[in-house]
């Protein structure tokens, strides 16, 4: 009865042990590594939702059959997909299962004495033989000193041999490397769980307060309380942008050259203010968050008046650049007007040109000859109160305003110009051009863990690749004439080691250098058992 119960359990345990051994084998690790490389690739080929949601949506829309399937399989969110996670989790389980027993073994190896010297050292491929004019005991004593100075750990198992070993740092480095990789992931996980990021567009002259409501987009980690953000404020005083004007070669003219946002910040509302700058590559570090200048663009300043001349809308309105020359799209939404609401939609062009084929475009990114090209709609701006983009007019419940000839009304505005809108709708004035700063604000409490672990991994890797694990053995035996000794030195290495032969030679030479020199008068140096070309035969 008892047997019947325990046997299947034993078998299950055996299976588990077998599976664990499979998972933690080097072969599995290798397979998982290659699989990880392959699995990472789709994310560079297909657009990723977390990086560019709009492009992803476009892609799915233009591939009606493949798109939804790829979506279901996670191809638009590769690095958060279950199969990608499965691979790296298995890899790291394998890593832990591999590193723990290896650490234990390494710990023991480091404290163990070097093994007994093989009986016949000539069998080892790297070896040297020489004869010296001292007693065997003195040779061993000298050899011990030489090896200790070369940082070998030595041990004599008997009276005519010496064993030495060094290079434990290789395995230590290897273990440090693998353990550090685990901590890289730990740091990434901390950043994911406790970090947050938000983007906000701040026109020049306006102040941003770091609260959830002020963000255009905000992505908190699962364990973040968005109500507890550090309450700093930041005003954009000025934004400088320069573009390439001198070099006209392909791919250079009009390229951005410098963006600098001049800002005034306070750590808490009402605290002393401080002036600083934010540039690309030079973020501003506020308490608990970095502020990055990741975008910029134009916010044309527009005033809309009703038929009686009352101001119903005035201020900078950010337009979103859609090409490198900042041809920008946007919408001016004027809900305040009595009766029907007005919506202007169209383009802002920093250096305007009306192209025969493309229509109005910008030909240079700087505001050299700015213009607004707008169309006008009226009706319900926010149907159903649905959330909508600030750059796009929702025209579902609006009608387009036409001119006398029944064509859509087109407005072309240059700075300082006012156009009276037809049908007693008032007027619109283009007052001037401001810039806006696109700021990304980010908090990542795990980044230092990741950085430290990554540097540690690098250090461990270098140690494991540079250091050689070597054993050197010495055997002495009395030579023919009394007081002389035949020394055999041999080396053994873990893995390929092209330098081993030289080490063996060096050890022998150093031992010989410690031997008393034969008197100068000695006419007949001792015969050498070394082959031609060895250093020893020169020394006699």
């Amino acid at each position, binding site marked *: 009865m008892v047997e019947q119960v325990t046997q299947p359990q034993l078998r299950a345990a055996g299976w588990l042990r077998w599976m664990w051994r499979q998972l933690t084998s080097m072969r599995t690790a290798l397979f998982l590594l*290659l699989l*990880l490389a392959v699995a990472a690739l789709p994310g560079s080929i297909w657009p990723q939702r977390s990086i560019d949601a709009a492009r992803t949506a476009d892609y799915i829309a233009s591939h009606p059959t493949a798109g939804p399937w790829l979506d279901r399989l996670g191809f638009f969110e590769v690095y958060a997909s279950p199969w990608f996670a499965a691979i790296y989790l298995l890899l790291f389980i394998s890593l832990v299962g591999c590193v723990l027993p290896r650490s234990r073994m390494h710990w023991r190896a480091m404290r163990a004495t070097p093994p007994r010297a093989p009986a016949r050292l000539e069998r080892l491929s790297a070896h040297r033989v020489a004869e010296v004019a001292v007693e065997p005991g003195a040779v061993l004593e000298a050899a011990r000193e030489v090896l200790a100075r070369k940082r070998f750990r030595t041990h004599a198992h008997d009276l005519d041999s010496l064993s030495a070993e060094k290079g434990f740092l290789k395995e230590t480095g290897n273990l440090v490397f693998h353990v550090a990789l685990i901590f890289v992931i730990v740091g990434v996980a901390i950043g994911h769980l406790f970090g947050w*990021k938000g983007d906000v567009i701040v026109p020049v002259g306006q102040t941003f307060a770091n609260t959830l409501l002020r963000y255009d987009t905000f992505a908190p980690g699962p364990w973040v309380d968005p109500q507890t953000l550090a309450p700093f404020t930041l005003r954009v005083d000025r934004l400088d942008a320069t573009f390439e004007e*001198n070099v006209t070669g392909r791919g250079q003219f009009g390229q951005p050259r410098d963006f600098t946002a001049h800002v005034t910040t306070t750590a808490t509302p009402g605290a002393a203010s401080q002036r600083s700058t934010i540039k690309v590559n030079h973020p501003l570090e506020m308490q608990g968050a970095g502020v990055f200048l990741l975008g910029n663009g134009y916010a044309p300043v527009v005033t809309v008046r009703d038929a009686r001349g009352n101001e119903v809308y005035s201020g900078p309105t950010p337009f979103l650049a859609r090409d490198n020359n900042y041809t920008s799209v946007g919408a001016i939404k004027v809900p305040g007007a009595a009766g029907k609401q007005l919506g202007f939609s169209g383009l802002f062009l920093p250096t305007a040109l009306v192209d025969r084929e493309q229509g109005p475009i910008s030909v240079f990114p700087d505001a050299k000859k700015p213009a607004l090209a707008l169309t006008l709609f009226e009706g319900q701006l926010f149907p159903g109160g649905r959330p909508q983009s600030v750059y796009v007019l929702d025209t579902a419940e609006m009608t387009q305003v036409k001119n006398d000839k029944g064509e859509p009304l087109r407005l072309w505005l240059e700075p300082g110009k006012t156009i009276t809108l037809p049908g007693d709708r008032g007027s619109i004035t283009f007052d001037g051009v401001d810039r806006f700063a696109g700021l990304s604000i980010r908090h990542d409490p795990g980044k230092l863990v990741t*950085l430290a672990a990554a540097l540690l991994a*690098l250090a461990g890797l270098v140690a494991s690749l540079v250091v050689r694990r070597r054993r050197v053995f010495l055997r002495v035996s009395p030579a023919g004439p009394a007081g002389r000794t035949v020394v055999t030195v041999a080396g053994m290495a873990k893995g390929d080691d092209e330098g081993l032969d030289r080490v063996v030679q060096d050890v022998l030479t150093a031992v010989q250098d410690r031997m008393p020199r034969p008197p100068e008068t000695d006419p007949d140096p001792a015969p050498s058992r070394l082959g031609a*070309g060895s250093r020893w035969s020169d020394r006699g």
Partner: protein
Amino acid sequence: MTNETLAEYANLSLYSAMAVFTLAMLCHAAYLAGLLPARDRTAPDRELVAAGASTSTTRAASGERGAGATDDDVPLRARKAAGVASTTTWLGGLLLLACVVLRGLSVHRWPLGNMFEFAVMGSMFTVLAYSLWSTRRDLRWLGLFVTAPVLLVLGMALRVWYTEAAQVMPSLQSYWLVIHVTVAVLATAVFTIGAAATGIYLVKDAVQRAGRTSVLDRFPETGAIERTAYGLHIVAFPLWTFTLIAGAIWARQAWASYWNWDPKEVWTFVIWVVYAAYLHSRATSGISRQTASYIALAGYACVIVNFAVVNVFFVGQHSYSGL
């Protein structure tokens, strides 16, 4: 801002370097051709066994001596060709160095702002690394397989990737450019030589197994070539690891997050993982050196894709469009 004259001199150095490399390549080829008569010899005495056998066994196996046997049985013409090849390779490398320096002076910045400049500096590192290493061991057998790809890359640089000397965009104005991209280019150069050696190893191994004789018999023995390739890879791999880390640090400065899975980052990561797999496979018992070598070549294929395809065709932050 840009000094046109210096930029022109930089291009002039580049043209001269290409002319010189053409000569170097031909001479390296002539050297290999000069080894050909080896076919007639019955048994090329590859394993140099010296008189004092007990002392020289490791030396012979280590392959430090390079091409097959001693120089004595290499025809004089071939040796002369190799000499010219070595000098011209040095000269071409120095001309590339001049090109890089002049280009940097002409734009007042580190000359690594576009694909053209990556290609030129990468070629420079490849050639100089090869030439420097040649002073320590006989690498004449490898020369053709270094100069030919370099010439190809320089040709591509001029025809396909040429960009006029100019300032760089704000996201590239950082000392991290100097650190991260220079090390990346250096690592790529060492991976390139490593891939050349790996390719030669695989071909020689296949030819030998097929029982055919060829000029490859006069190359170092397969084991030595394979160890040479491994030695190159373990230099390049930590450099690439550093590139990855430095890139992440820079990404946090420039783009707010140290890792964004941008296509360029994905490929840098993939390259790192594939080469890690190569090092792993080499230490895994039961995986042959041939299989490991194929993994190394797969890694190099990723390096090429990362440069030639990802830079041009993939949409990401590294393409710096629409900032």
